[in-house]
């Protein structure tokens, strides 16, 4: 097993475990309360509208929008960490077939690990700082890093095997 394979498999397993741990923590301590708040704020917005209280309705609708914004990102973060980790482990098993030098393979593996860890984290951090440009830029850059690493991997797979 080469260094790039170790990086992908061990990094992927650690990231999957971390993503599952986050998901477990989220499901037990956060999700039920978030879903209650999500449904409650939308219901409140309609009830305030029925009571002819437009200011209250608007405030509840904004609370719904903010909660939904957080909920979508929190769930996406969990699924993307685990999904990207699984791709890393799978690629790790066959990374020897990526026909580049081991040094370049290690660079690709590192890019996959950094991008896969950072992309969901940047998305999650947006729930604490809604609309922060730096975090949006970080999520775009890290997802770009994953796409570029995957493109390099696909290119490496397509190159003919170099005789040893």
């Amino acid at each position, binding site marked *: 097993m080469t260094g790039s394979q170790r990086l992908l498999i061990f990094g992927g397993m650690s990231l999957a475990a971390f993503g599952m741990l986050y998901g477990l923590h989220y*499901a037990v301590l956060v999700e039920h309360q978030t879903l209650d708040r999500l449904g409650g704020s939308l*219901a409140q917005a309609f009830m305030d509208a029925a009571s002819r209280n437009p200011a209250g309705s608007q405030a509840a609708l904004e609370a719904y929008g903010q909660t939904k914004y957080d909920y979508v990102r929190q769930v996406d973060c969990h699924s993307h960490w685990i999904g990207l980790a699984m791709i890393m482990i*799978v690629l790790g098993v066959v990374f020897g077939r990526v026909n580049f030098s081991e040094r370049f393979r290690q660079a690709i593996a590192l890019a996959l690990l950094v991008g896969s860890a950072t992309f969901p984290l940047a998305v999650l951090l947006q729930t604490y700082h809604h609309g922060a440009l730096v975090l949006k830029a970080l999520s775009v850059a890290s997802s770009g890093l994953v796409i570029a690493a995957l493109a390099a991997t696909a290119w490496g797979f397509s190159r003919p095997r170099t005789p040893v």
Partner: protein
Amino acid sequence: MTTATLSPTAFAPMSSRRLFIFGGIALVAAGMLFGDIFAVFILHQNAGQQGASLIAANQAVAAGNPTAVGEIFSNLGGILEDRGTKVDAHVHMIGAGYLALLLALVQPYIALAAKTKKRLATYFIAGGVLFPIGIFLIHYVGLAYSPFKVIGWASILADSAGALLLIVLLIEAWGFRSYLRTRQLTEPAIPDDDSWPRRALLSGGTLLIFFGFLHGAWYAGAYLYQHERMETDILGKMMAAASASDLPAATAEVTNFGNLAGAHAVNIAAHSHIIEFGLLAMLLSFIQPYVFLSDLWKRRWTKVLLAGSLILPVFVLLELKLGLLAGGIADIGGLMVIVALVGMLSGVLRYTGTLDAGGSR
């Protein structure tokens, strides 16, 4: 390496690797079958119920009746929970199946006793089965007899099964760490097969994942924030129209809300399904030496799986333009993947350990 030359000792009848492969494919196939049934019989009806609830809520707003609004939303919460738990059961069953297949691949690098590895595989498959069952039951069990305020027994089952999966994964990671110290394989490595099905699944899977990433990045950049803003805008307009007793305008906004939810859902579904199928194809490429079928049938199942993997996400996206016709074709795509999976599973089952590889063909 062909199936005929695979040593039986590399794939003992009840080894941890075989349990992970068999359990993994079965979980993925069962999760997909459940997803197809959900899409055909529940998804559209559930969306219709959501729209009807919103129209009823608008009528209650127009009548100035907040109590009725509260009751309607209580009912709507149940409808959303019904849908959400079924989607989650589908996703988590398939996810557990993928993880099982992944763990099958890394078994040679897990430096633990064979008995421990087999026990871990059994626990993992049991957790993978109980996890989605717990999620599915949340809607039906609710908070009945629960000692907690917001968490019911079905949630406790799901969370416990999730914890079991996590514990197994952590022990496997510990075993991998031990391997890194000794560098001794605990069982034969996965055969370095270079057959057509393996190459097709590997390259096809990588391409599917790549296209899925590109689509996800495009959707997030071009539409995600816009759709989020549009949702609250539409809801605001809907309530304003209902408050002014303009029910036709409020109903039109319900239609807009449904269309927006549909556009969001099909993009997310296409993105997630194409990547999941790509990953599945790559995973299946590794286990081809353990599929005890003739090369002709292995090629057939590979073609059916890759075709279905492309048809489903493409036609899910086309649902916005072609409606139910595209939805039906997408469901057929899903069915093709399931059939191919069951075909490969039958190949895994054919190896009983009593027959040698050559004789089994």
